[in-house]
């Protein structure tokens, strides 16, 4: 019983913490993110299983987390608002060639991040970008003029 509650609480706590961490440019996970995920995950697992380290308890905890994930995926598919809360929403950092300073500041993006994304599609001049969008996974999509 306690394990189920701890697993549910741990799932949401982890989701909440990861969600409010500022989105970082670039979809690839780096060592920087690995440290975070392993450390937070390791801490959460201690309180989830408690002193009961039996296979039964750990199996139950894993199943509960699986159910939580599935339930949340279902809720996301039914409600765009839930999807936006869990995954965020895309934001435009360049709109019709104009830099959106507020968005850039809020997302913590650097000019170099956008330039790198532009180079990825063969755009060499920043002036040639019509739209640049930070996607939900942190990837920057660039549309040239």
């Amino acid at each position, binding site marked *: 019983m306690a394990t189920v509650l701890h697993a549910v609480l741990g799932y949401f706590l982890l989701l*909440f913490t990861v969600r*409010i961490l*500022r989105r970082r440019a670039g979809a690839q996970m780096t060592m920087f993110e690995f440290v975070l995920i392993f450390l937070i995950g390791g801490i959460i697992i201690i309180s989830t299983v*408690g*002193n009961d380290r039996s296979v039964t308890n750990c199996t139950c905890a894993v199943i509960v987390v699986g159910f939580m994930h599935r339930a949340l995926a279902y809720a996301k598919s039914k409600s765009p*608002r839930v999807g*936006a*809360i869990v995954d*965020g*929403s*895309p*934001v*435009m950092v360049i*709109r*019709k060639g104009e830099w959106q300073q507020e968005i850039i500041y*809020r997302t913590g993006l650097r000019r170099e991040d956008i330039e790198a994304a532009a180079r990825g599609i063969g755009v060499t001049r920043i002036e040639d970008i019509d*739209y640049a*969008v930070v996607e939900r996974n942190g990837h920057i999509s660039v*549309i040239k003029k």
Partner: protein
Amino acid sequence: MSNLPFESEVADSVSKAENKVAVGEDLEFQRKWWRFEHIAWSILLAIVIVDLLGGFGRGWLARAQKSTPDQAMTLHYERIARASTPSVMTFQFTDKAIHNGRITLYVSDSVVKPLGALRIAPQPALSSIGDGGITYVFDAGKGPSTVQIQLQPSFPGAHPFTVHVEGEPPVHGSVFVMP
């Protein structure tokens, strides 16, 4: 009827920028989220500060001390403890607590069950149950002496307790166990 799972184009299902690029941007929601993030980080910072001060146990705010009026017994304990985490209750006695070469200490049942008393040191010469608690009897010589009860609370919540040393009024306290 089409076999395609989605009959409308993606571009028709998400909001467009300047009626041109289908992005699905919801800036109003995003601004609300950033405000929420700001508040959430402030709350998390407050949690860390409270934790550093011992507001969730194991720190300056958590430490408590109670004494009998004539200082025959002084009790040091943690008013805020954590579930499944060891905590120590320390009793310090002066000569005034010694009667016939013995110190008789009563602790209420709440110290044993919800607060999870694991062991007592030193071992009492005698222990007996009754009156809603346990009475320990220690052989004692002159000079200050100390008894420790190691706790490991299992049940979150507030747990009032009573301790009583022979010849002195009872001392009441409470331990709040964090989950």
